[in-house]
């Protein structure tokens, strides 16, 4: 019975680490292939354009653009030392 417990632990270690390594190794390969394909067939410019378009169709952000603008202005001034005034 006790031997079984140790055996179970060894089994768990063996198959556990095996699975973890095999899985992540596969994920490394799959990720490389994916990146390769994406960068060949979906270059950045195209993607950004499409995503931006999709975003435009989505409901507007909940922050009032005027406030965003105002904050941006404040940031700009802070950085630019009031050049725009």
């Amino acid at each position: 019975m006790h031997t079984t417990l140790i055996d179970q632990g060894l089994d768990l270690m063996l198959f556990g680490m095996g699975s973890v390594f095999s899985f992540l190794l596969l994920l490394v390969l799959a990720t490389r292939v994916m990146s390769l394909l994406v960068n060949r067939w979906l270059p950045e410019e195209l993607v950004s354009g499409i995503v931006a378009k999709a975003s435009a169709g989505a409901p507007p952000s909940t922050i009032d653009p005027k406030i965003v603008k105002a904050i941006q202005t404040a940031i700009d001034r802070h950085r630019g030392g009031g050049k725009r005034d």
Partner: protein
Amino acid sequence: MDKLVSLWASSGVAQLEAGQLIMMSVGMVLLYLAIRRGFEPLLLVPIGFGTVLVNIPGAGFDAAPLYDAMGQLETPGGLLYYIYHAGIETGLFPLIIFMGVGAMTDFSSLLANPKTLLLGAAAQVGIFSTVLGAVALGHFGILDFSIRDAASIGIIGGADGPTAIFVTSKLAPELLGAVAVAAYSYMALVPIIQPPIMRALTSEAERGIKMQQLRPVSAAERIIFPLLLLMLVAMLLPDAAPLLGMFCFGNLMRECGVVNRLSDTTQNALINSVTIFLGLGVGSKMSADQFLNAETLGILGLGAVAFCIGTAAGILMAKVMNKFSTHKINPLIGAAGVSAVPMAARVANRVGLESDPQNFLLMHAMGPNVAGVIGSAVAAGVMINLVAGL
């Protein structure tokens, strides 16, 4: 006079058992560590407070509701009873937290350098060697651990709170308090535990290795990656699908750019609310009879060992990989493979800066760091699958 007796008899002092007093002190210590020492306060404040609450004699925070013969509620249950049974026993809270963590995770570093995934794999050695340690303690009759207990203890080495809670609530719920406390405590101790191991296992030259600048990652890659991961999990390790599925879902909401409303709520109101209740619910398992025993000491000890082995395995893996690769990896970032996001990555960065003040490893360490989250979840799935069959 009867009333006075009744009030006194129902007061905490009169009912107080030593175990409860000690556990309340444990709760206070957790609060102290969280507030004054900054130990993972987001979880340890609720866990510590929940520990105090559940040990108040006569307050009934973990009392089950009573129903009469007609099925009508006679006496409602305690708050922590409902939280535990609705959110933790069912696995809902850890899964929602994982969704939130996914929505907060940036895979750019990993995508730019996918081989760092292997560092996250190596660090899981900590998990399984701790399982071995726990069964050895059980084998030699030193402590009373079953294989389910051992698996739950091992997962502490994953350095990932929600994963540890998810696994333990499935395999060994009576250990939940000890395992969660150990997991979060050691995650908080990363800046203390890891650096000596990192220095011991690396040479000055290795620590000074400068890594290639990471290439920019396109939006499409970041959108497709969570789907790719999901598909691999679905095909190969469905037992890991609950955790990694929700993780990928959160990450997809973050990256896809068209559901920012949902992503924002997932990263804020939702994960914060669930964190509070998860912490309280874990605290509800911190009762004297479940926590104050030799097994808890064993869990704390084994957890520390798990952490150290995981850290070492990540570093050594990086050194092995360097033997076969032209683009050298700084082995310090291997230590980040234990997860403990983002603390472990920061520690790698800091130790790196000690050797060379111009060597910024933070972004490089984020790769193995998030890989560690994936690795632990995979390990969790495998263990749940295998242990359930034993």
